[in-house]
C-alpha cells in the first residue's frame, strides 16, 4: 500500500479549529486560494445628484463581511461617499461616530475587526480617478465587486479593464424588495472540483469490468455452497457481476439493456436471496436489487465533457495554455483510446466482511492509480512537445482532474448584461420575459434605474428626477423601444405591465436599500465570489434576480 497511516496524534492548529466548519466544504486547497486572494469592492461612484448621496453600498459591505469571516487574504474598499444619517439606518458596519467621516475608511475599520488574519485598505476616491492615477491598481485584485446602480461609462470602463486582466466582476444592485447581480467571468472559466452530488458520481463499470474486477467476481464461484453468513456478506457489486454473467449466458452474450430486461434481471437477483434465514432476507441482496436500475448503464460521456473535448483549447493546447487544458487534452486522448474516462476509484459502502470490502476497494483504487499514471504519461508527453512552460504540472493536479473527469465544467464568460449591449443579451431577455413567473421584468426595471442614474450623474437629468414619473416613463419607453427594435411582438402587453409594476416597486424607496434584502443579496454574492476564488463548485452563469416580495429567485444567462 502506498498511502501511509498517520503515525501520532496530530491535533488541529488554532487556524484549523477556527475554520473547521468551512474546511469541510472546500478543504485546505480552497482555503489557500482564499487566503491568497485580494478582493476589490467599488462601493459607490459618487452622489447621484445634489439631493441624493447615491448608493448606500450595503450589499457590498455585507458581501465583504461574508468573505472576511472565512479568511480572504485582503480587501480594498473604493468609495468616495461620506457617511450620512441614512447610512446608519441600513449599514451595520458603521457607528454613531462614523457620521460625516469617509465611508470607505469607516467600513474598512469595522470590517477588519471581524478577522485579524485579513488585511484591509481603502480609498476615498472614485474608481475612475484611481485607475487613472495608478494604472497597476486593478491588477492587485483577484475579483472586483461593484455596487450599482453605477453610471454606464464608469461601469463599462471598469468591466473592460477587468476583462483585459482576466479578473472576474460581480455587479450588484439592491433596491427596496428587489435585487439582481451578474457575474462577468474571463472568456473561458474551467472548473475541476465541481462537487457533484455523490449519488450521481458513482462509476462502477459493472458492464465493462476490467480484468482484475472480472476476476474477483469469478472467484466467488458457486454461491449455493456458501453458508448463510458468507452468502449474506458477498458484496453486492460482486453479486451483480455474478448474475450478469449468468444473464449473458442465457441471452446470447447481451446485457439487460432496456427497462423491461433490467426489471427481469432485478427479479432474478431478488429471487436468489435466501429467505429461510432468521432475518428472512439478505441486506446485500437488497442493496444489489436497489442498484440495478441506476448502476447497469453503459458508460457514456456527459455532453458537457464532450463539448470540452471538442474545444480548440483542448484539441490543440499551446505552451501558454492553462494546466487545465493540457490535462484535459491528455484525458481526451485517454478517452479516445479506452472509450471510458479514468476511473474515479471510489466505492460506496456496502454490506460485506471487512477484508472482502477492503480488497474490493483496493481493486478500484489500484485501477484508478493505473489510469492516473497513464494520463500523467500523456501529460508529460504533451508538455515536452509544447516546449518550455512555467513549470511542470503537479502530479496532485493530474490526480484530482482524473478523479473529477466526468464532471469537469467550462463556463464561457459573458460581459455584464446591458440592454443596449450585445445582441445575445437582448435575445435572451426577450426569450425569457413572457415565461410565467419570469423575473426578467424585474431585471429590465433595474436597467431603467441604471439609465435614470446615469442621466442624473451625467447631469442630463435634474436632481429630483429619481422620483419623477415623467422621467421614469421616458426611460421605460426607451428600454422597451430597444427591446422591440427588431421584433414588435417581443414584449407583449402582460410583460409591459410586469415591467411597470416592477419599476413602481423599485421607485417606492427612491433607489434606497432595505437591509434584509441587501444582506440576503450579500450572502448570495459572497457565495459566488467564494466559488470563483476557490474554483470549486459551479458559479452563476450569469445573472440572478431576487424578488423579496414573493421570496423567490431565478437565474438567467443574459
Amino acid at each position, binding site marked *: *500500500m502506498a*498511502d501511509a*497511516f498517520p503515525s501520532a496524534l*496530530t*491535533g488541529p492548529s488554532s487556524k*484549523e*479549529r*477556527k*475554520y*473547521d*466548519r*468551512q474546511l*469541510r466544504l472546500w478543504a485546505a486547497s480552497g482555503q489557500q486560494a482564499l487566503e491568497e486572494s485580494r478582493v476589490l469592492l467599488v462601493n459607490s461612484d459618487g452622489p447621484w445628484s445634489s439631493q441624493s448621496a447615491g448608493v448606500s453600498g450595503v450589499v457590498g459591505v455585507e458581501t465583504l*463581511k*461574508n468573505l472576511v*469571516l*472565512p479568511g480572504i487574504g485582503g480587501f480594498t474598499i473604493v468609495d468616495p461617499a461620506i457617511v*450620512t*444619517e*441614512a447610512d446608519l*439606518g441600513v449599514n*451595520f458596519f458603521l*457607528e*454613531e461616530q462614523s457620521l460625516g467621516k469617509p465611508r470607505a475608511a469607516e467600513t474598512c475599520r469595522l470590517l477588519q475587526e*471581524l*478577522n485579524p488574519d485579513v488585511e484591509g485598505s481603502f480609498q476615498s476616491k472614485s474608481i475612475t480617478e484611481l485607475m487613472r492615477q495608478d494604472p497597476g491598481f486593478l491588477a492587485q485584485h483577484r475579483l472586483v465587486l461593484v455596487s450599482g446602480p453605477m453610471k454606464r461609462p464608469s461601469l463599462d470602463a471598469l468591466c473592460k479593464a477587468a476583462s483585459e486582466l482576466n479578473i472576474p466582476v460581480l455587479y450588484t444592485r439592491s433596491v427596496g424588495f428587489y435585487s439582481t447581480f451578474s457575474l462577468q467571468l474571463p472568456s473561458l472559466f474551467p472548473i475541476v472540483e*465541481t462537487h457533484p452530488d455523490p449519488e450521481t458520481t458513482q462509476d462502477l463499470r459493472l458492464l465493462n469490468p476490467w480484468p482484475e474486477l472480472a476476476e474477483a467476481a469469478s472467484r466467488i464461484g458457486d454461491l449455493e455452497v456458501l453458508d448463510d453468513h458468507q452468502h449474506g*456478506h458477498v458484496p453486492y457489486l460482486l453479486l451483480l457481476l455474478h448474475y450478469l454473467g449468468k444473464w449473458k449466458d442465457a441471452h446470447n452474450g447481451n446485457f439487460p439493456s432496456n427497462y423491461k430486461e433490467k426489471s427481469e434481471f432485478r427479479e432474478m437477483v431478488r429471487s436468489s436471496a435466501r429467505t429461510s434465514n432468521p432475518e428472512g432476507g439478505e441486506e446485500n441482496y437488497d442493496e444489489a436489487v436497489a442498484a440495478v436500475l441506476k448502476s447497469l448503464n453503459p458508460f457514456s460521456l456527459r455532453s458537457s465533457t464532450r463539448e470540452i473535448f471538442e474545444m480548440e483549447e483542448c484539441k490543440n493546447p499551446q505552451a501558454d495554455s492553462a494546466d487545465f487544458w493540457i490535462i484535459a487534452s491528455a484525458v481526451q486522448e485517454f478517452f479516445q483510446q479506452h472509450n471510458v474516462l479514468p476511473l474515479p476509484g471510489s466505492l460506496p*459502502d456496502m454490506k*460485506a466482511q*471487512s*477484508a472482502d470490502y*477492503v480488497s474490493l476497494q483496493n481493486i478500484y483504487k489500484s485501477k484508478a492509480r493505473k489510469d492516473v499514471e497513464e494520463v500523467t504519461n500523456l501529460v508529460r508527453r504533451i508538455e515536452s512537445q509544447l516546449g518550455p512552460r512555467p513549470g511542470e504540472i503537479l502530479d496532485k493536479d493530474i490526480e484530482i482532474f482524473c478523479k473529477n473527469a466526468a464532471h469537469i465544467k467550462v463556463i464561457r464568460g459573458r460581459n455584464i448584461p446591458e440592454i443596449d449591449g450585445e445582441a445575445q443579451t437582448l435575445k435572451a431577455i426577450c426569450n425569457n420575459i413572457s415565461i410565467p413567473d419570469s423575473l426578467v421584468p424585474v431585471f429590465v426595471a433595474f436597467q431603467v434605474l441604471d439609465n435614470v442614474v446615469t442621466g442624473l450623474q451625467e447631469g442630463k437629468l435634474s436632481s429630483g428626477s429619481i422620483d419623477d414619473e415623467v422621467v421614469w416613463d421616458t426611460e421605460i419607453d426607451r428600454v422597451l423601444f430597444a427591446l422591440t427594435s427588431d421584433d414588435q411582438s417581443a414584449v407583449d402587453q402582460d410583460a409591459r405591465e410586469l415591467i411597470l*409594476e416592477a419599476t*413602481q416597486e423599485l421607485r*417606492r*424607496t*427612491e433607489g*434606497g436599500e*432595505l*437591509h*434584509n*434584502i441587501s*444582506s*440576503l443579496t450579500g*450572502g*448570495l454574492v*459572497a*457565495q459566488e465570489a*467564494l466559488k470563483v476564488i476557490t474554483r470549486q*463548485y*459551479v*458559479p*452563476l452563469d450569469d445573472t440572478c434576480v431576487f424578488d*423579496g*416580495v414573493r*421570496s*423567490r*429567485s431565478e*437565474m438567467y444567462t443574459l
Partner: protein
Amino acid sequence: MASTNSSLRWKHLHKVLTKPGPFSDQDWVPGLETISALETSKILVIGAGGLGCEILKNLALSGFKDIHVIDMDTIDISNLNRQFLFRQSDIGKPKAEVAAAFVERRVKGVRITPYVGKIQDKDEDYYMQFKIVVCGLDSIEARRWINATLIGMVDPSNPESLKPLIDGGTEGFKGQARVILPTLSSCIECQLDMHAPRPAVPLCTIATIPRQPQHCIEWAHQIAWQEKRKDDPFDSDDLDHIGWVYNEALVRSKQFHIHGVTFQMTQGVVKNIIPAIASTNAVIAAATTSEALKIATSCNPYLDNYMMYAGEEGVYTYTFEAEKKPDCPVCGNLARSMTVDPDMTLQEYIDALGDRPEAQLKKPSMRTEGKTLYQRFPPQLEEQTRANLNRKLRDLVENGQEIAVSDPAYTIDFRYRLLFK
C-alpha cells in the same frame, strides 16, 4: 430634533412603510401607525449562533426595537468563521449576552434582552408576550418543541394567541426558510419527513465488520470508551477526549487495513458536525427577517410558506406551499397511519421510531386506549411493562389500532394508527 434625525436615519425603510406598492394589500393603510406598530412589536429570536447573529442584526436594522434572544451555548473558537458578533476574546462567554450587547451598542435605540438557557425553561406566559418568533437553530428537537408549544397556545377566541413562527436552517451551501402560522398552515411536524436524519450505521457493522473510517471512529466512541473509560464521562468538546477516540480509531483501522481516519473526521463523526459558512447563514437569516418585517407591517405579502435554497451550482431557490397534513401529530386531528411488521418486537418498533423520518422519537413510551405497552418512568411502571419489549406487535395490538406515544423531549402525545404489513 430627535425625530428629524430618526426619519432621516430610517428614510429608506420608512418609505416602504408609508407608501403602498403594487403588491401591498389594497386595504393596507401605510403611514405612521404602521411604523409605530413595528416599533412596538416584541419579537423573540431563538438561537444566537450562525443564524441568530445575523437575525439580530437584521431585525435591529429593520426597525424592530424590542427584541429578545434565547441561547444556552457559550462561544467556541469554531464559531468565529461566521458568528460575526463574536471575537477571540469572547470565547467561553454566553452567546445570547455577547450578541445582544453588541447589536445594542451598534444600533442606537434598539433594546435586546438576552436569556441564557433552554427554550424549555420558559412557559406559555413567556411566549405569549411576543408578536413573532424567529428560529435560527441547528436542532430538530428544539424546533419541534417550540412548534408544538406555539400550536398548543392557540386559542381561537383570542387572535393575539396566534404567534407566527419563522424558521431558518442551513447546512453547507444549502438552507431553507419557512413561515408557519400555528394551526392554520403546515407546521414543522407536518414537514418532518422532509428533513430525514442520516441513517445510523448498524451496531453489528461497527462492532464486527467495519469497512469505512467512520465505522472505526464510531467503534472507538461507542464501544472502546465504554470498555476502557467507563467512569469518565465523555465530553465531545474536550480535545483530549477526541484525541483519545482518534487514536483508538486509528489502531482499529490499521487492524482492518482501512484508510482515512483523521482527527478532523473523528471530530466530525463524534460531534455530528454540520458544515457551516457565513454566506449561507446570511441568505437564510435575511430571508427569515424579511418575512418578519412583512408580517409585522403588511408592507408586502409574506412567504406562503417555504423557500429552499441551494448554492452549489449557481443560485437555486424553490418557493412552494408545503401542505398541512390532517394526520399531523401536532396540528392535525387524525392519527397518523404507520405501516409496521406485526412480527417485530416492541423493542424493535421502539428502535425504529428513532430512525423513521416521520417520527424521530428517541425515548418513546406508549400506550393504547386500554393498556400501557411500555412506560419509561416511573421505575415501577417501567419494570411492569418491560416484559412487553420482547413480545411481538401482533400480540400486543390489533391491526389498525391507535397508539399514543410520548417522549420526554416533547410536551405532546403522538398518535399513530398501526397498520400491519
